[in-house]
Protein backbone atom coordinates (compact mmCIF):
# COMPACT_ATOMS: atom_id res chain seq x y z
CA UNK A 1 0.00 0.00 0.00
CA UNK A 2 2.70 2.48 0.96
CA UNK A 3 4.59 1.53 -2.20
CA UNK A 4 1.55 2.56 -4.21
CA UNK A 5 1.32 5.84 -2.31
CA UNK A 6 4.97 6.55 -3.05
CA UNK A 7 4.38 5.75 -6.72
CA UNK A 8 1.57 8.31 -6.81
CA UNK A 9 3.86 10.88 -5.16
CA UNK A 10 6.49 10.08 -7.79
CA UNK A 11 3.90 10.69 -10.49
CA UNK A 12 3.02 14.05 -8.94
CA UNK A 13 6.71 14.99 -8.93
CA UNK A 14 7.09 13.97 -12.56
CA UNK A 15 4.00 15.95 -13.57
CA UNK A 16 5.21 19.04 -11.71
CA UNK A 17 8.60 18.85 -13.40
CA UNK A 18 7.01 18.44 -16.83
CA UNK A 19 4.54 21.30 -16.32
CA UNK A 20 7.39 23.53 -15.17
CA UNK A 21 9.43 22.66 -18.26
CA UNK A 22 6.40 23.35 -20.48
CA UNK A 23 5.42 26.54 -18.64
CA UNK A 24 6.27 28.88 -21.53
CA UNK A 25 4.78 26.53 -24.10
CA UNK A 26 1.46 26.41 -22.20
CA UNK A 27 1.47 30.16 -21.70
CA UNK A 28 2.09 30.71 -25.41
CA UNK A 29 -0.86 28.48 -26.28
CA UNK A 30 -3.00 30.35 -23.76
CA UNK A 31 -1.94 33.79 -24.92
CA UNK A 32 -3.30 32.99 -28.37
CA UNK A 33 -6.83 32.26 -27.16
CA UNK A 34 -7.00 33.04 -23.44
CA UNK A 35 -5.38 35.20 -20.79
CA UNK A 36 -1.82 33.82 -20.94
CA UNK A 37 -1.79 32.48 -17.40
CA UNK A 38 -2.18 28.71 -17.82
CA UNK A 39 1.54 27.89 -17.76
CA UNK A 40 2.36 30.02 -14.73
CA UNK A 41 -0.74 29.03 -12.79
CA UNK A 42 -0.29 25.31 -13.39
CA UNK A 43 3.45 25.40 -12.66
CA UNK A 44 2.88 27.21 -9.37
CA UNK A 45 0.04 24.88 -8.39
CA UNK A 46 1.90 21.67 -9.17
CA UNK A 47 5.05 22.87 -7.38
CA UNK A 48 2.96 23.46 -4.25
CA UNK A 49 1.27 20.11 -4.79
CA UNK A 50 4.65 18.35 -4.72
CA UNK A 51 5.46 20.02 -1.39
CA UNK A 52 2.11 18.98 0.04
CA UNK A 53 2.44 15.40 -1.27
CA UNK A 54 5.95 15.00 0.15
CA UNK A 55 4.73 16.20 3.55
CA UNK A 56 2.30 13.31 3.86
CA UNK A 57 3.49 10.77 6.36
CA UNK A 58 3.08 7.21 5.11
CA UNK A 59 1.21 8.25 1.96
CA UNK A 60 -1.58 6.17 0.45
CA UNK A 61 -2.96 6.81 -3.07
CA UNK A 62 -6.26 8.29 -1.92
CA UNK A 63 -4.66 10.75 0.49
CA UNK A 64 -2.08 11.82 -2.07
CA UNK A 65 -4.72 12.39 -4.76
CA UNK A 66 -6.97 14.36 -2.43
CA UNK A 67 -4.11 16.42 -1.01
CA UNK A 68 -2.83 17.28 -4.48
CA UNK A 69 -6.37 18.11 -5.61
CA UNK A 70 -6.93 20.41 -2.64
CA UNK A 71 -3.64 22.15 -3.24
CA UNK A 72 -4.35 22.66 -6.94
CA UNK A 73 -7.80 24.05 -6.08
CA UNK A 74 -6.24 26.69 -3.85
CA UNK A 75 -3.11 27.48 -5.82
CA UNK A 76 -3.87 27.23 -9.53
CA UNK A 77 -6.67 29.77 -9.66
CA UNK A 78 -9.04 30.57 -12.48
CA UNK A 79 -11.16 27.78 -13.90
CA UNK A 80 -8.23 25.34 -13.94
CA UNK A 81 -8.21 25.17 -10.14
CA UNK A 82 -11.65 23.62 -9.76
CA UNK A 83 -11.34 21.65 -13.03
CA UNK A 84 -7.95 19.99 -12.46
CA UNK A 85 -7.93 20.13 -8.64
CA UNK A 86 -11.58 19.81 -7.66
CA UNK A 87 -12.03 16.80 -9.94
CA UNK A 88 -8.98 15.14 -8.40
CA UNK A 89 -10.36 15.57 -4.87
CA UNK A 90 -13.53 13.69 -5.78
CA UNK A 91 -11.92 11.09 -8.06
CA UNK A 92 -9.28 10.40 -5.40
CA UNK A 93 -11.91 8.61 -3.32
CA UNK A 94 -11.91 5.84 -5.96
CA UNK A 95 -8.33 4.97 -4.96
CA UNK A 96 -9.32 4.08 -1.39
CA UNK A 97 -8.61 0.42 -2.14
CA UNK A 98 -5.31 1.13 -3.80
CA UNK A 99 -4.18 1.37 -7.41
CA UNK A 100 -5.52 -1.49 -9.54
CA UNK A 101 -6.76 -1.50 -13.15
CA UNK A 102 -10.33 -1.45 -11.80
CA UNK A 103 -9.84 1.42 -9.35
CA UNK A 104 -7.99 3.45 -11.95
CA UNK A 105 -10.87 3.00 -14.42
CA UNK A 106 -13.27 4.22 -11.71
CA UNK A 107 -10.92 7.09 -10.87
CA UNK A 108 -10.68 8.12 -14.52
CA UNK A 109 -14.43 7.97 -15.09
CA UNK A 110 -15.18 10.03 -11.98
CA UNK A 111 -12.54 12.57 -12.94
CA UNK A 112 -13.98 12.95 -16.43
CA UNK A 113 -17.55 13.22 -15.11
CA UNK A 114 -16.52 15.96 -12.68
CA UNK A 115 -14.68 17.95 -15.35
CA UNK A 116 -17.64 17.70 -17.74
CA UNK A 117 -20.10 18.62 -15.03
CA UNK A 118 -18.12 21.49 -13.56
CA UNK A 119 -17.14 23.03 -16.87
CA UNK A 120 -20.45 22.15 -18.54
CA UNK A 121 -18.29 21.05 -21.46
CA UNK A 122 -18.69 18.11 -23.82
CA UNK A 123 -16.48 16.48 -26.39
CA UNK A 124 -15.99 18.83 -29.30
CA UNK A 125 -16.15 22.07 -27.31
CA UNK A 126 -12.41 22.66 -27.72
CA UNK A 127 -11.43 22.07 -24.08
CA UNK A 128 -9.52 19.62 -21.89
CA UNK A 129 -12.52 17.31 -22.25
CA UNK A 130 -11.36 16.64 -25.82
CA UNK A 131 -8.13 15.11 -24.53
CA UNK A 132 -9.60 13.50 -21.46
CA UNK A 133 -12.63 11.76 -22.97
CA UNK A 134 -10.84 9.60 -25.55
CA UNK A 135 -8.13 8.81 -23.00
CA UNK A 136 -10.62 7.65 -20.38
CA UNK A 137 -12.78 5.72 -22.84
CA UNK A 138 -9.75 4.05 -24.40
CA UNK A 139 -8.31 3.08 -21.03
CA UNK A 140 -11.64 1.64 -19.87
CA UNK A 141 -12.14 -0.36 -23.06
CA UNK A 142 -8.55 -1.58 -23.08
CA UNK A 143 -8.92 -2.90 -19.54
CA UNK A 144 -12.49 -4.14 -19.56
CA UNK A 145 -13.03 -5.31 -23.15
CA UNK A 146 -9.62 -5.89 -24.71
CA UNK A 147 -8.14 -7.29 -21.51
CA UNK A 148 -4.85 -5.47 -22.01
CA UNK A 149 -2.23 -5.14 -19.32
CA UNK A 150 -2.39 -1.80 -17.44
CA UNK A 151 0.71 -0.36 -19.09
CA UNK A 152 -0.51 -1.09 -22.63
CA UNK A 153 -3.91 0.31 -21.72
CA UNK A 154 -2.34 3.48 -20.37
CA UNK A 155 -0.12 3.82 -23.45
CA UNK A 156 -3.20 3.59 -25.68
CA UNK A 157 -4.94 6.15 -23.53
CA UNK A 158 -2.05 8.57 -23.93
CA UNK A 159 -2.18 8.06 -27.69
CA UNK A 160 -5.90 8.77 -27.66
CA UNK A 161 -5.33 11.94 -25.63
CA UNK A 162 -2.73 13.06 -28.14
CA UNK A 163 -5.22 12.73 -30.97
CA UNK A 164 -7.75 14.56 -28.79
CA UNK A 165 -5.36 17.48 -28.38
CA UNK A 166 -4.85 17.60 -32.14
CA UNK A 167 -8.62 17.61 -32.52
CA UNK A 168 -8.86 20.91 -30.59
CA UNK A 169 -6.87 22.72 -33.27
CA UNK A 170 -9.29 22.83 -36.23
CA UNK A 171 -12.50 23.28 -34.22
CA UNK A 172 -14.22 26.32 -32.80
CA UNK A 173 -14.08 26.55 -28.99
CA UNK A 174 -17.50 26.55 -27.36
CA UNK A 175 -16.51 26.63 -23.70
CA UNK A 176 -13.90 28.41 -21.66
CA UNK A 177 -12.34 31.73 -22.37
CA UNK A 178 -11.38 30.74 -25.91
CA UNK A 179 -15.07 30.58 -26.81
CA UNK A 180 -15.27 34.38 -26.54
CA UNK A 181 -13.15 34.46 -29.70
CA UNK A 182 -15.74 32.62 -31.77
CA UNK A 183 -14.32 31.56 -35.12
CA UNK A 184 -10.97 33.12 -34.29
CA UNK A 185 -10.36 30.21 -31.89
CA UNK A 186 -10.11 27.90 -34.92
CA UNK A 187 -6.52 26.89 -35.62
CA UNK A 188 -5.40 27.06 -32.00
CA UNK A 189 -4.51 24.14 -29.76
CA UNK A 190 -6.27 24.19 -26.40
CA UNK A 191 -3.88 24.75 -23.46
CA UNK A 192 -5.96 22.73 -20.98
CA UNK A 193 -6.13 19.76 -23.34
CA UNK A 194 -2.38 20.08 -23.82
CA UNK A 195 -1.55 20.08 -20.11
CA UNK A 196 -3.92 17.14 -19.67
CA UNK A 197 -1.85 15.22 -22.23
CA UNK A 198 1.42 16.15 -20.44
CA UNK A 199 0.00 14.88 -17.16
CA UNK A 200 -1.02 11.57 -18.74
CA UNK A 201 2.36 11.16 -20.45
CA UNK A 202 4.15 11.56 -17.12
CA UNK A 203 1.79 9.16 -15.36
CA UNK A 204 2.60 6.62 -18.08
CA UNK A 205 6.35 7.12 -17.62
CA UNK A 206 6.14 6.65 -13.86
CA UNK A 207 3.84 3.64 -14.24
CA UNK A 208 6.30 2.05 -16.67
CA UNK A 209 9.12 2.74 -14.26
CA UNK A 210 7.25 1.26 -11.29
CA UNK A 211 5.96 -1.75 -13.18
CA UNK A 212 9.42 -2.38 -14.64
CA UNK A 213 8.03 -2.34 -18.12
CA UNK A 214 8.93 -0.68 -21.35
CA UNK A 215 6.33 1.77 -22.57
CA UNK A 216 4.60 -0.34 -25.20
CA UNK A 217 4.71 0.82 -28.79
CA UNK A 218 1.16 1.57 -29.79
CA UNK A 219 0.04 1.52 -33.36
CA UNK A 220 -1.40 4.94 -34.03
CA UNK A 221 -2.74 3.86 -37.40
CA UNK A 222 -5.09 1.33 -35.84
CA UNK A 223 -6.42 3.12 -32.78
CA UNK A 224 -8.87 1.61 -30.39
CA UNK A 225 -11.34 4.40 -30.85
CA UNK A 226 -13.14 3.79 -34.17
CA UNK A 227 -15.00 0.67 -33.06
CA UNK A 228 -16.03 2.46 -29.88
CA UNK A 229 -19.39 3.82 -31.03
CA UNK A 230 -19.93 5.64 -27.75
CA UNK A 231 -17.18 8.09 -28.53
CA UNK A 232 -18.53 8.85 -31.97
CA UNK A 233 -21.99 9.55 -30.57
CA UNK A 234 -20.79 11.93 -27.92
CA UNK A 235 -18.70 13.69 -30.49
CA UNK A 236 -21.70 14.21 -32.75
CA UNK A 237 -23.76 15.57 -29.85
CA UNK A 238 -21.03 17.98 -28.85
CA UNK A 239 -20.59 19.33 -32.35
CA UNK A 240 -24.30 19.78 -32.86
CA UNK A 241 -25.17 21.73 -29.76
CA UNK A 242 -24.99 25.45 -29.59
CA UNK A 243 -23.87 25.88 -26.02
CA UNK A 244 -25.27 28.59 -23.78
CA UNK A 245 -23.14 31.43 -22.50
CA UNK A 246 -19.52 30.40 -22.19
CA UNK A 247 -18.05 29.52 -18.85
CA UNK A 248 -15.51 32.26 -18.33
CA UNK A 249 -12.58 32.13 -16.01
CA UNK A 250 -11.64 35.15 -14.04
Amino acid at each position, binding site marked *: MSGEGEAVVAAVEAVAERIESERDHLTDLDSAIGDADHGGNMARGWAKAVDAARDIEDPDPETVAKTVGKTL*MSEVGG*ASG*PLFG*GSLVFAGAELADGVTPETVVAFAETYLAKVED*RGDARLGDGTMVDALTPAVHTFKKSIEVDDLDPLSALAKAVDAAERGVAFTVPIRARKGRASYLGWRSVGHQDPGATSTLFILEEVLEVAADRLDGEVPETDATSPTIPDDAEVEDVEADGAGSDGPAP*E*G*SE
Partner: protein
Amino acid sequence: MSVGLVVVSHSARAAEGIVEIAAEMAGETRIEAVGGDGRGGIGTVPDDIEDALVTAAGDAGDEGDDDGEGVVVLVDLGSAVMNAEVAIELADVDAVIADAPVLEGAVNAAVAATDPNATLESVREQAEAAGEISKV
Protein backbone atom coordinates in the same frame (compact mmCIF):
# COMPACT_ATOMS: atom_id res chain seq x y z
CA MET B 1 -34.80 28.12 11.60
CA SER B 2 -33.10 30.64 9.40
CA VAL B 3 -31.42 30.86 6.04
CA GLY B 4 -27.81 32.08 5.89
CA LEU B 5 -26.16 33.91 3.01
CA VAL B 6 -22.68 33.78 1.49
CA VAL B 7 -21.43 36.36 -1.00
CA VAL B 8 -18.54 35.15 -3.18
CA SER B 9 -16.55 37.57 -5.30
CA HIS B 10 -13.17 37.48 -7.00
CA SER B 11 -12.35 40.50 -4.85
CA ALA B 12 -12.50 40.22 -1.05
CA ARG B 13 -13.25 43.94 -0.90
CA ALA B 14 -16.09 43.64 -3.39
CA ALA B 15 -17.59 40.79 -1.36
CA GLU B 16 -17.28 42.79 1.86
CA GLY B 17 -18.80 45.86 0.24
CA ILE B 18 -21.75 43.89 -1.08
CA VAL B 19 -22.29 42.36 2.35
CA GLU B 20 -22.09 45.85 3.88
CA ILE B 21 -24.97 46.98 1.66
CA ALA B 22 -27.04 43.81 2.05
CA ALA B 23 -26.54 43.78 5.84
CA GLU B 24 -28.52 47.04 6.02
CA MET B 25 -31.56 44.94 5.12
CA ALA B 26 -30.51 41.68 6.71
CA GLY B 27 -31.63 42.02 10.31
CA GLU B 28 -30.32 39.02 12.22
CA THR B 29 -29.48 37.02 9.10
CA ARG B 30 -26.04 35.42 9.01
CA ILE B 31 -24.29 36.82 5.95
CA GLU B 32 -20.68 36.03 5.11
CA ALA B 33 -18.33 37.67 2.61
CA VAL B 34 -15.59 35.62 0.95
CA GLY B 35 -13.26 36.40 -1.92
CA GLY B 36 -9.72 36.84 -3.17
CA ASP B 37 -7.12 34.23 -4.08
CA GLY B 38 -5.65 34.02 -0.58
CA ARG B 39 -2.46 35.76 -1.73
CA GLY B 40 -3.88 39.26 -1.87
CA GLY B 41 -4.91 38.89 -5.51
CA ILE B 42 -8.07 38.43 -7.51
CA GLY B 43 -9.67 35.00 -7.42
CA THR B 44 -11.61 32.58 -5.23
CA VAL B 45 -10.55 29.60 -3.10
CA PRO B 46 -12.90 26.65 -2.44
CA ASP B 47 -11.55 26.11 1.09
CA ASP B 48 -12.36 29.70 2.04
CA ILE B 49 -15.84 29.41 0.55
CA GLU B 50 -16.35 26.17 2.49
CA ASP B 51 -15.48 27.95 5.76
CA ALA B 52 -17.92 30.75 4.93
CA LEU B 53 -20.65 28.20 4.18
CA VAL B 54 -20.18 26.52 7.55
CA THR B 55 -20.27 29.87 9.37
CA ALA B 56 -23.35 31.05 7.48
CA ALA B 57 -25.12 27.74 8.14
CA GLY B 58 -25.00 28.46 11.86
CA ASP B 59 -24.98 25.87 14.62
CA ALA B 60 -26.06 22.90 12.58
CA GLY B 61 -24.80 20.72 15.42
CA ASP B 62 -27.49 21.93 17.84
CA GLU B 63 -30.22 19.58 18.95
CA GLY B 64 -33.79 20.25 17.90
CA ASP B 65 -35.19 22.57 15.28
CA ASP B 66 -32.72 25.37 15.73
CA ASP B 67 -30.66 24.11 12.82
CA GLY B 68 -30.26 26.51 9.95
CA GLU B 69 -32.46 26.09 6.91
CA GLY B 70 -29.38 26.14 4.75
CA VAL B 71 -27.37 28.71 2.84
CA VAL B 72 -28.04 30.68 -0.34
CA VAL B 73 -24.84 31.55 -2.18
CA LEU B 74 -24.41 34.64 -4.37
CA VAL B 75 -21.49 34.52 -6.80
CA ASP B 76 -19.92 36.88 -9.29
CA LEU B 77 -18.20 35.37 -12.35
CA GLY B 78 -16.90 32.24 -14.06
CA SER B 79 -14.58 30.31 -11.79
CA ALA B 80 -16.26 31.73 -8.67
CA VAL B 81 -19.26 29.65 -9.71
CA MET B 82 -17.15 26.50 -10.14
CA ASN B 83 -15.32 27.02 -6.87
CA ALA B 84 -18.60 27.62 -5.04
CA GLU B 85 -19.91 24.35 -6.51
CA VAL B 86 -16.83 22.48 -5.33
CA ALA B 87 -17.13 24.05 -1.85
CA ILE B 88 -20.80 23.07 -1.59
CA GLU B 89 -19.99 19.48 -2.53
CA LEU B 90 -17.20 19.34 0.05
CA ALA B 91 -19.04 21.11 2.88
CA ASP B 92 -21.59 19.26 4.96
CA VAL B 93 -24.03 22.11 4.47
CA ASP B 94 -27.34 22.40 2.63
CA ALA B 95 -26.53 25.17 0.16
CA VAL B 96 -27.67 26.40 -3.25
CA ILE B 97 -26.22 28.91 -5.69
CA ALA B 98 -28.66 31.62 -6.78
CA ASP B 99 -28.51 32.39 -10.49
CA ALA B 100 -28.63 36.11 -9.78
CA PRO B 101 -26.66 39.34 -10.10
CA VAL B 102 -24.42 39.30 -7.06
CA LEU B 103 -25.22 42.68 -5.48
CA GLU B 104 -28.92 42.97 -6.24
CA GLY B 105 -29.37 39.29 -5.49
CA ALA B 106 -27.66 39.66 -2.11
CA VAL B 107 -29.91 42.57 -1.14
CA ASN B 108 -33.05 40.71 -2.26
CA ALA B 109 -31.92 37.56 -0.46
CA ALA B 110 -31.16 39.51 2.72
CA VAL B 111 -34.69 40.92 2.75
CA ALA B 112 -36.24 37.53 1.96
CA ALA B 113 -34.23 35.84 4.70
CA THR B 114 -35.76 38.08 7.37
CA ASP B 115 -39.18 36.52 6.68
CA PRO B 116 -39.88 34.19 9.64
CA ASN B 117 -41.16 31.59 7.16
CA ALA B 118 -38.15 31.87 4.87
CA THR B 119 -36.90 28.67 3.28
CA LEU B 120 -33.86 27.92 1.18
CA GLU B 121 -36.12 27.94 -1.90
CA SER B 122 -37.97 31.18 -1.06
CA VAL B 123 -34.73 33.06 -0.47
CA ARG B 124 -33.17 31.67 -3.63
CA GLU B 125 -36.28 32.67 -5.62
CA GLN B 126 -36.16 36.23 -4.32
CA ALA B 127 -32.45 36.46 -5.06
CA GLU B 128 -33.05 35.26 -8.61
CA ALA B 129 -35.91 37.73 -9.04
CA ALA B 130 -33.20 40.40 -8.87
CA GLY B 131 -32.29 39.40 -12.41
CA GLU B 132 -35.48 41.16 -13.54
CA ILE B 133 -34.66 44.50 -11.96
CA SER B 134 -34.73 47.30 -14.51
CA LYS B 135 -32.74 50.41 -13.74
CA VAL B 136 -33.50 52.92 -16.44
